[in-house]
């Protein structure tokens, strides 16, 4: 199941302005605590790490645990320092990996 991600970053900002970033990715975030129909626990399968970099510099990081909802949503802020690329990566169980980038123009 290819992971679909939606991110929202303002395309333009003023230098020094604090901008809002929203991220949403499709992932069932199976907790590992749920039993299946025969009573066995369904193995854990979650995203464990979310990182946002700005022109290669890490500006935000999150460690997810099973108590994060399915289709994890995170909204945070960062300072618009320069034009370039803002990249988000997600990594988790079973080799899960996803990445999305957007360009930002800062004047």
């Amino acid at each position, binding site marked *: 199941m290819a992971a679909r991600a939606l991110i929202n970053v303002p395309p333009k900002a003023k230098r020094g302005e604090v901008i809002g970033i929203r991220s949403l990715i499709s992932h069932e975030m199976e907790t590992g605590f749920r039993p299946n129909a025969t009573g066995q626990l369904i193995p854990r399968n979650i995203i464990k790490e979310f990182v946002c970099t700005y022109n290669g510099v890490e500006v935000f990081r999150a460690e*997810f645990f099973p108590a994060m909802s399915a289709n994890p949503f995170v909204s945070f802020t960062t300072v618009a320092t320069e034009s370039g690329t803002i990249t988000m990566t997600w990594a988790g169980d079973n080799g899960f990996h996803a990445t999305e980038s957007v360009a930002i123009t800062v004047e």
Partner: protein
Amino acid sequence: MTDTLPPIATRRRFLIGAAGFAGGIALVTMLPAGRAAATPASMQAAIVSVTGNATVNQGRIKIDLPPLVENGNAVPLGLSVESPMTDADHVKAIHVFTEKNPQPNVVSFQLGPRAGTANISTRMRLADTQLVVVVAEMSDGTFWRDEIEVVVTMAACLEES
């Protein structure tokens, strides 16, 4: 034939209407019997593994959580920590814990001066009515904490599993 009277709660619901009675039947236990659960002690241990021996001060954190939650699967959580977010004085990390979920950690955020603010929103799972605790770690080594009690109800119409 000795019948016992139905418990008072069920009786009142039956009088109010079949709808209430249906609610009593439709409720299904959400968690399997005998499953692991966090306890206030394990939550405290999880908090201590972050704060160590440092004093944890009360305040500076604003938690935006609905006091009554519509569905425990996706509870919107808003966090806001007062801080100038400068190189000298900023929030380094924010950790979220619960008291009664199967395990105490929910999420940990790492920030820094480049974040601009320490305002974050996300969505979490809450297994039951319980306490949610947020701990913030500052660049000066101090720790701050706040907590909120959240009531969790369940959807009335569930699927056959």
